[in-house]
């Protein structure tokens, strides 16, 4: 059993007990514990179930590499799934739940998967569940979704806040172990600005547990002294609980600081995302111990040797009382010694090497620990916890020589540098034969804008595993990084580390070396995804030679592992199966983040009200106070309708249309884009931008224009007014203003840069109000001022003048088919003018109308709407807009494209009106079906609905759509199946439903 012991525990405070719950059970821990150490202190060795087979799993590691102990933490709005118990600091009241089990952790029906494991080999998702096709949606997918997957998705709105933090530094050091600290010091002493991020709450990394001396004093003292020195330096910033999450182009890096995870009652944001620009980045990210692949290496109680001594030394917790240790290197003897010193029985050290190890082995031997060389674990026995091991010769098939009863197993397969951050931005790796690991290739670093490497690895992350080498390597890294960006390193004494001599490790990829199939079937490589030695071998046998393919086929190293625990062992097995050297097989791609970061941190402050900037017209507040049902349009909010008490939104829309057609409506049209195009060549420029001729437009007149991309597709439309010989005002769609402004700038700057034209976006400088309906002129005449008669201001012209003392520009344009004036006033006068129109218009029955009434009225008139009738694949010719395409012009953007064979194909769907036979409203986006079915068994189609409304004017549903040969098929009836089984029948008609001759707008 695992339990708290009376001695050791350098990180815990025994005077400060803490209460927490695990799966509803009240447990006790101590200040300084991690959730993992506290669970072990309570003999909670079973902490979760695996992903595929639902096997019982215990704590394997003590840090970020933990694959098993993933928990759901907190409740309600503070719930977070998939949190590692090993990196979760314990606090009073913490609630944790284990994952991947149903109905309970102790009794899990999913474990039946394990009994059927021979039916779940590598690639089982690909091989199984293929037929019959109809089973996917109803049977396979729901079952898989229930059984697989990690933690549950939070159901409540996140109660915490998050923030971004921008940092600029000369040098970023990722990792606060002895290497990171020494590198930071060496760099900072040159005067460079240094930022150090350490993912845990403690400085020094593994060194205080692993031991050794620096300049004659214990390494822990060196750590304390160096942190104190760095803290005192003004050019150094130190951050704990801050992980270097990713390294990106040109020295960009992301840091993930966990501010209140350990103390939820603290005020302030929970996480902070550091967005860092550094001239050089030092990765002092340490190394991760590898597992050994023997049968039963996943049973709770089997643990990495380094993690086991962490629990003893750091937290005063014994992961077992009677321990067997298996190793292929000297480091595991540190665990044997630490356990023995803590009074834990070490039954055996099984050293796969025939000749054993160096100084540490001798020391362990002198302490009376039994050491068997050339020995291995054949299999671990137990289910929910270890009960014993079978010992065998390592160089054999696993025939048991001895059975040893024990309650915990420590294993060490050697160490792999954490090369993730080095690799994120393209740093390459080399294979180190002696240590059997990949480490950064100094000749192929990630490069920056100047072509020089901008990441410098240091210490264990660079493959240096001995204390002395770690310190000298880190010192050199700090100086190198500073020198590269123009700082002068001082020649100073490099701290001298000292530790025991170590014998060479021996690569062990399978234990025992020639393990039988039955044993390989229980030897796990990837704990989280349940990938075994036999799965990788099967993948190789089936022809998966690329490591990237094998990864996806077997799921090795996927999900949260990302090449931490599963990586090298899996590659080695694959290489062995392919008879290829490991470096030739290579590694999978390391992608950021190093460990998962919260979605909250990624979103930062951008949520709720401030998710994105909100643009408001000068009349926004009036709309808000008068029942506006808001509709987002670009970054604007526009009233969809003004809903009165007792009315539904639909009622309001119907009322607004009717009132505008019969009396008088007001529309806030301020969001329409307004671009001033000015200069000697303005006319020539607009002739290139619009399909129709703008240069012939006379000052004082307006013309509707279409704009296409160079691909020929319609991108925007609007009314152009010629202000004077050199000046045009181009109206764009609400969403199009910024885009079309950029479009104009692009062509002016990049193609016609010698043309004398300037463009200014004055959208927000003017409030624009459409005064629409039969009473429109009466209202303007009542206001008094300029002449707004038909003769003085005819349809499709504009005038500057005054109305009721307001400076106005009045356009006689109409998007509704009614008598209509669009009146622009300076933005600061917008609200006052709006208020005046409402007051003076009362006697004429004035009512504001929203975007839905606008849409209905334009559809009744057969006017197209960009984004409804167009979707980026529609050309003006499809919409019957030939009249707006100049035949006189040699060129305009899109003209050449519109001559391509597909664009002139007579089978392109064309715009028509659609009228349901029973007067109902067609579903938006519905397809008109044709005879026969396509190769997927779906009905053939011959058209689709682009806009559809109930027209209060006509008292029936009206629609527009694109239909094959549509304009030639007037009167034909098409069938439109709905999604609810109902089929709609609609007749092809002209798209102009109302006032076909345009008499109403031209009065």
């Amino acid at each position: 059993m695992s339990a708290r012991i009376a001695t050791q525990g350098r990180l815990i405070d025994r005077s400060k007990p803490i209460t927490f719950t695990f799966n509803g059970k009240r447990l006790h821990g101590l200040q300084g514990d991690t959730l993992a150490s506290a669970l072990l202190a309570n003999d909670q060795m079973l902490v979760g179930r695996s992903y595929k087979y639902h096997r019982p799993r215990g704590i394997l590691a003590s840090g970020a590499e933990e694959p098993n102990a993933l928990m759901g933490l907190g409740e309600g709005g503070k719930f977070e799934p998939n949190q590692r118990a090993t990196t979760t600091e314990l606090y009073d009241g913490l609630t944790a739940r284990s994952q991947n089990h149903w109905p309970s952790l102790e009794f899990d029906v999913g474990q039946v998967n394990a009994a059927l494991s021979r039916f779940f080999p590598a690639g089982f998702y690909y091989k199984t569940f293929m037929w019959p096709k109809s089973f996917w949606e109803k049977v396979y997918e729901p079952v898989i979704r229930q059984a697989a997957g990690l933690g549950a998705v939070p159901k409540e709105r996140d109660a915490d806040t998050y923030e971004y933090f921008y940092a600029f530094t000369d040098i970023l050091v990722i990792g606060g172990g002895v290497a990171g600290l020494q590198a930071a010091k060496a760099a900072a002493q040159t005067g460079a600005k240094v930022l150090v991020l350490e993912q845990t709450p403690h400085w020094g990394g593994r060194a205080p547990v692993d031991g050794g001396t620096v300049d004659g004093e214990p390494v822990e003292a060196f750590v304390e002294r160096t942190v104190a020195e760095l803290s005192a330096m003004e050019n150094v910033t130190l951050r704990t609980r801050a992980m270097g999450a990713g390294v990106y182009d040109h020295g960009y890096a992301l840091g993930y600081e966990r501010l209140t995870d350990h103390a939820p009652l603290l005020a302030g944001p929970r996480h902070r995302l550091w967005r860092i620009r550094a001239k050089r980045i030092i990765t002092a990210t340490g190394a991760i111990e590898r597992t050994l692949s023997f049968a039963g290496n996943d049973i709770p109680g089997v643990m990495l040797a380094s993690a086991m001594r962490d629990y003893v030394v750091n937290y005063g917790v014994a992961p077992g009382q009677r321990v067997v240790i298996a190793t292929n290197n000297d480091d595991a003897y540190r665990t044997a010694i630490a356990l023995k010193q803590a009074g834990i029985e070490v039954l055996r050290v099984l050293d796969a090497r025939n000749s054993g190890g160096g100084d540490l082995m001798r020391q362990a031997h002198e302490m009376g620990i039994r050491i068997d060389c050339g020995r291995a674990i054949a299999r671990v026995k137990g289910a929910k916890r270890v009960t014993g091991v079978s010992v065998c010769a390592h160089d054999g098939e696993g025939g048991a020589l001895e059975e040893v009863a024990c309650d915990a197993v420590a294993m060490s397969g050697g160490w792999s540098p954490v090369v993730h951050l080095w690799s994120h931005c393209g740093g390459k790796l080399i294979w180190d034969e002696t240590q059997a690991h990949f480490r950064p290739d100094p000749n192929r670093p990630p490069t920056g804008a100047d072509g020089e490497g901008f990441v410098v690895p240091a210490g264990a992350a660079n493959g240096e595993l001995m204390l002395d080498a770690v310190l000298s390597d880190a010192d050199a890294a700090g100086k190198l990084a500073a020198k590269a960006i123009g700082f002068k390193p001082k020649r100073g004494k490099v701290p001298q580390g000292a530790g025991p001599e170590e014998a060479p490790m021996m690569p062990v990829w399978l234990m025992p070396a020639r393990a039988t199939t039955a044993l390989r079937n229980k030897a796990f490589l990837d704990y989280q995804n349940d990938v075994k030695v036999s799965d990788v071998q099967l993948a190789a046998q089936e022809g998966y030679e690329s490591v990237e393919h094998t990864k996806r086929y077997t799921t090795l190293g996927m999900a949260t592992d990302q090449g931490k625990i599963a990586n090298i062992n899996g590659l080695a097995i694959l290489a062995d199966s392919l008879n290829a050297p490991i470096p030739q097989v290579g590694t999978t791609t390391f992608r950021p983040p190093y460990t998962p970061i919260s979605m909250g941190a990624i979103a930062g402050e951008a949520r709720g009200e401030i998710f994105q900037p909100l643009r408001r017209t000068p009349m926004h507040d009036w709309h808000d106070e008068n029942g506006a049902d808001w509709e987002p349009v670009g970054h604007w909010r526009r009233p969809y309708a003004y809903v009165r008490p007792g009315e539904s939104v639909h009622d309001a829309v119907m009322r607004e249309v009717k009132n505008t057609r019969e009396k008088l409506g007001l529309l806030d049209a301020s969001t329409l884009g307004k671009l001033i195009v000015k200069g000697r060549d303005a006319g020539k420029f607009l002739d290139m931008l619009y399909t129709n001729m703008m240069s012939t437009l006379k000052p004082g007149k307006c013309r509707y224009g279409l704009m296409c991309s160079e691909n020929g597709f319609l991108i925007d439309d609007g009314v152009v007014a010629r202000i004077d010989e050199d000046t045009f005002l181009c109206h764009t769609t609400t969403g199009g203003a910024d885009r079309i402004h950029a479009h104009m700038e692009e062509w002016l700057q990049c193609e016609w840069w010698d043309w004398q034209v300037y463009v200014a976006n004055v959208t927000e400088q003017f409030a624009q109000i459409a005064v629409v309906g039969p009473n429109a002129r009466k209202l303007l005449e009542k206001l008094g001022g300029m002449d707004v008669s038909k003769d003085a201001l005819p349809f499709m012209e504009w005038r500057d003048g005054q109305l009721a003392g307001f400076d106005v520009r009045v356009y006689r344009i109409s998007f509704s088919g009614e008598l209509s004036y669009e009146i622009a006033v300076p933005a600061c006068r917008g609200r006052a003018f709006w208020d005046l129109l409402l007051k003076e218009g009362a006697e004429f029955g004035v009512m504001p109308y929203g975007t839905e009434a606008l849409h209905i009225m334009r559809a009744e008139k057969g006017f197209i709407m960009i984004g409804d009738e167009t979707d980026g694949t529609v050309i003006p010719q499809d919409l019957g807009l030939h009249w707006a395409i100049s035949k006189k012009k040699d060129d305009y953007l899109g003209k050449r494209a519109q001559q391509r064979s597909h664009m002139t194909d007579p089978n392109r769907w064309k715009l028509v009106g659609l009228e349901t036979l029973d007067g109902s409203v067609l579903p938006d986006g519905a397809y008109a079906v044709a005879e026969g079915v396509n190769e997927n068994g779906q009905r053939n189609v011959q058209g689709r609905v682009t806009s559809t409304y109930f027209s209060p004017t006509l008292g029936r549903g009206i629609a527009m759509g694109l239909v094959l040969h549509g304009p030639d098929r007037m009167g034909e009836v098409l069938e439109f199946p709905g999604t609810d089984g109902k089929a709609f029948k609609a007749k092809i008609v002209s798209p102009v439903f109302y006032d076909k001759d345009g008499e109403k707008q031209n009065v």
Partner: protein
Amino acid sequence: MLILQCPYCGIDAEETELAPGGEAHLKRHGPGSSDEDFHDYLFARENPRGVHFERWRHANGCGKWFHAARDTATLEVFGTYPAQTTEPPKEIRDAITARRPGWRWREFS
């Protein structure tokens, strides 16, 4: 997250300040061009591993379009220059030659 210097305002602009515009130095083909020329103008793009010329706009800055010569594999930037040119200026080509002797890109070298 590249950093490119805007040749107009001189600012070392973060990628978030910039809008990408695809390949630089395309020659526009309009009415009267052959189907093949027009097709290539619309769709045929270089996709090199190495030296490349791109258009960028300092969209959240001075608003100007400019060109960047850079290495797509190493992210090295050889230089930026105004967009009002049909070919890379000599100093840019020399800067590339200094780092990548023998480079070729479309008709330039």
